[in-house]
C-alpha cells in the first residue's frame, strides 16, 4: 500500500487547504459557537463543499458520487481538521453513507446515495448508549412489524443527530447488549412519530444528540440480526477518516506551537532556545511523523480493501488520540498564559482533541482491540 499521495490526491489536498483556510477558518467555528448557530455548521459553506463534490467523494460514480476513494476523502478531512471546520462530512458522508453503501439494497442505494452526494440528505448514526464507545452495546430494540421495523430505546452522543433528516439506529432484534449477533440497522426519519431529539453541545462546540425512540417505524438496512457485519466496516471507515481529521488538527496545533516558540521571548531570548522545550518539541515531531504514516497506511488499506483494515483502524485511532492529546496539551502549556485564553485559538484544538478521543473509541478501546486481533 503506497505511503505517498499520487498527483490527483495532492491536487485535491491543495484545493481543500485553500478552501478550508478561506471559507472555514477557526473564526467560523467561533462565530457558530458565539451565535449559538441552529445547525452547528454553516449551511452556505456546506453547499460550497457539496459543489466541490466532497459529500460524495467516496460514493461510487454510479450513485452520483465522485468515486475518488478514501485517501481522497482523508486528505479533505485532514485539511478540515487543520481549521477545525464544522460540517456534516463525518456523520453524513462517512458514517451515514457508509451504512447505506455497505448495508443498503439497490433501491436504497439508488434512491439515497445521490441525495447524499447532492448535499440535501443529512444522516446520523445512532450507536452509543453509554459514555464509552461500544459497537455491540445496543440494548435498543428493533421489532419487526410487517415489512417495517419498530425501534424503541435511547441513544447518546449521536453526532449531528439534531439536524439529520434520517437516522440510522443500531438496534437489536435478538440477544443482549454486548452480543455481536442480533444487531439490526433500522433507518428512521428524524421527524417520525416517537423520535425525541435533545441537542447537546459538546466542549468543542460541536453537536451531538441524546435521542429517545418510542416505537418509531423505520426501514431495514441490510439483514436482520446481521447488522454488525455492516457496522464493523462502517465504524472502521469512520475511525480512519476521523483519524485523518485529527491528523490535520494536531499538525496545525504543532506548527502553531513551534512558531510561537520561535517568536515569544522571555529572559531576552526566544523560548524555543530553551533545551527542555526543544527536546519536548522534537519528541512531538516524532509522534507527528509516525501519525502521518499510520493514517496514510490505513486510508490505503480502505481503498485496497486490504485484509488488515481493522488492525490499521485501531492502530491509527489509538495513536491519533494520544498524539492529538499530547500535542494540544503541550500546545497550551507552551503558549503559557495566553494559551489559557478563549481569545487565542490554541485551546480550541485541546477541546476538539478530547471529543475526538471519545468518538468511535478511546485509546484503551483500540489498543485492546488491536491486541485481540493480533492474538494477544
Amino acid at each position, binding site marked *: 500500500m503506497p505511503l505517498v499521495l499520487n498527483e490527483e490526491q495532492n491536487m485535491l489536498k491543495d484545493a481543500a487547504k485553500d478552501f478550508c483556510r478561506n471559507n472555514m477558518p477557526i473564526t467560523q467555528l467561533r462565530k457558530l459557537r458565539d451565535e449559538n448557530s441552529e445547525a452547528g455548521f454553516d449551511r452556505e459553506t456546506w453547499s460550497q463543499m457539496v459543489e466541490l463534490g466532497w459529500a460524495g467523494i467516496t460514493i461510487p460514480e454510479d450513485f452520483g458520487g465522485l468515486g475518488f476513494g478514501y485517501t481522497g476523502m482523508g486528505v479533505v478531512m485532514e485539511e478540515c481538521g487543520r481549521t477545525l471546520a464544522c460540517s456534516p462530512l463525518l456523520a453524513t458522508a462517512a458514517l451515514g453513507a457508509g451504512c447505506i453503501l455497505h448495508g443498503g439494497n439497490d433501491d436504497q442505494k439508488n434512491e439515497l446515495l445521490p441525495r447524499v452526494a447532492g448535499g440535501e440528505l443529512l444522516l446520523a448514526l445512532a450507536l*452509543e448508549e*453509554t*459514555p*464509552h*464507545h461500544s459497537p455491540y452495546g445496543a440494548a435498543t430494540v428493533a421489532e419487526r412489524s410487517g415489512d417495517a421495523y419498530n425501534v424503541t430505546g435511547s441513544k*447518546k*452522543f449521536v453526532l449531528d443527530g439534531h439536524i439529520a433528516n434520517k437516522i440510522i439506529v443500531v438496534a437489536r432484534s435478538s440477544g443482549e447488549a454486548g452480543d455481536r449477533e442480533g444487531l439490526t440497522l433500522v433507518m428512521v426519519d428524524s421527524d417520525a412519530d416517537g423520535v425525541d431529539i*435533545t441537542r*447537546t*453541545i*459538546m*466542549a*468543542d*462546540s460541536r453537536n*451531538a444528540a*441524546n435521542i429517545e425512540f418510542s416505537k418509531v417505524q423505520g426501514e431495514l438496512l441490510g439483514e436482520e440480526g446481521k447488522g454488525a457485519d455492516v457496522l464493523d466496516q462502517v465504524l472502521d471507515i469512520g475511525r480512519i477518516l476521523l483519524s485523518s481529521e485529527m491528523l490535520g488538527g494536531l499538525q496545525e496545533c504543532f506548527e502553531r506551537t513551534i512558531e510561537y516558540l520561535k517568536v515569544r*521571548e*522571555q*529572559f*531576552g531570548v526566544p*523560548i524555543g532556545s*530553551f533545551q*527542555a*522545550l526543544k527536546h519536548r518539541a522534537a519528541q512531538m515531531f516524532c509522534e507527528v511523523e509516525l501519525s502521518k504514516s499510520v493514517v496514510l497506511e490505513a486510508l490505503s488499506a480502505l481503498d485496497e480493501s486490504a485484509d488488515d483494515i481493522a488492525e490499521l483502524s485501531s492502530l491509527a485511532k489509538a495513536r491519533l488520540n494520544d498524539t492529538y492529546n499530547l500535542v494540544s*496539551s503541550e500546545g*497550551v*502549556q507552551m503558549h*503559557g*498564559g495566553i*494559551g*489559557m*485564553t*478563549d*481569545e487565542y485559538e490554541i*485551546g480550541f484544538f*485541546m*477541546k476538539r482533541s*478530547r*471529543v475526538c478521543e*471519545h*468518538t468511535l473509541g*478511546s485509546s*484503551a478501546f483500540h*489498543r*485492546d482491540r488491536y491486541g485481540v486481533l493480533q492474538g494477544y
Partner: protein
Amino acid sequence: MSDMESFRNETRSWLEANCPASMRLPEKEEDMIGGGTKQVFTNPDAKVWLEHMADKGWTAPAWPKEYGGGGLSQEEHGILQDEMMRIGARAPINGMGFSMIGPTLLDYGSEEQKKAHLPKIASGKIRWCQGYSEPAAGSDLASLQTRCEDRGDFFQINGQKIWTSGAQYADWIFTLVRTDPKASKHDGISFVLIDMNQPGVTVKPIRLISGNSPFCETFFDSARCEKNNLVGQLNRGWTVGKRLLQHERSSISGLAGGGRRGRYEALGRLPEIAKQYVGEADGRIAAPALREAVLINQMNQRAFGLTQRRSMEESHSGGTPTFATSMFKYFGSELGKERLELQLEAMGTQSLGWDKQSFDDLESSLTRTWLRSKAGTIAGGSSEIQLNIIAKRVLGLPD
C-alpha cells in the same frame, strides 16, 4: 486535662454553637466567600459565619491578635482545623489577603502597614488581588515594565498588569513596579500597595478556555499610590516579591490549609467515579488500563501527601527542611492535571459536555475544572520555572 485537650473541647463546643448548619455542607466553587466591599452574600448564613469567626480572630487563626488574628500556636491551629473538618465546616473566607499579602506584610511590612491592612483582611472588609505578571513578562517576571514615578507627595503608576485574579472583585492590589528603569533587571523594582477604587485604575476581565473569567487585565493610567504604601525598601521589591511567590506556590500546591480538604472533592473520589462510569469486575475498576493509571495517580497522590507532612514535621523538629516549595508547586499541579485527565477518560463523552441541560452537575463542572486545571502548571511560575528552580537551588546544577 492538658491545655490542648481543653482547647479542643472548647473549640468543639464553640463551633457546634456558632457554625450554621448550611455552612457544614460541601461548598461549590461559586459559593466561596472572598470578602471585600463588593461581596454579595446569597446565603445569609455565610455572613453570620464570617462574622462569628472574624470576632474570634479565626479567619486568620495564626496571625497575632493585635492584627485581627487568633494568636493560635501551630498546635492549636491544627486542632482548630481538625475540629472544623470534623463537622465539615467551610472556610469562612478565602483569598489572597490571607494566603499572600497577609503573610508577606507580617514578614516585611512596617508596624503602621500591619495595623492598617491586616485587621481589614481578617474581618473580610477588604479584598486583595495580585499585580505581578505583564503581557511581555510571563515566566520572566523581573522584566516587568509598569512605571512608578516619585511625584514628591506620592507615587504615580502607569502600565498594565495581566492575570490579576479576581481584580474585578478586589479593593486593593499588591504589585511589583519599576522604580528605577536604569538599574539592572532585578534592582529597580519596588513592591507597592494600590487602592483600586480610583479613576486611574481600570479592570477588564479575560475570558478563559473554561468559559470563566477568573483573571483580568488591570490598567494603571496615572494611578496614585501613597508613599506609606511602599513595602520594604525602594528598589528592593524583588526580595519581597519572591517571598510572596513562595506563599503563592504553597497555596497552589495545596501545601497550605486548602490541601487538607482536597481540591477536587466536588468531583468525587476518582476510583469510585471510575467504577461507576466503566463498571467493575471482580471488585476492580473494569477497564484495566484506566485502573492502572488511576492507581499510579492515587498512589502518587498519597506519597505526595506524606511528603507534605514530612516537610512540615521536619521544619517543626528543627532540622533543615530539605524540600523546595517549587517541588510541591510542580508535582502538586501536575498530579492535579493528570487526575482530571483520568476523570475525563473514566467518564467518556459524559465528561465533555458544554451545555448544562444535558449533563448533570458533576459532569458539567468537570469539563470546566479540567480546562481550568491546565492553568495550574502555568500560573504562579510554570512547571518549567519550578524545575529550573529545583535544579539550581536544590540540586546546585550550574547555569
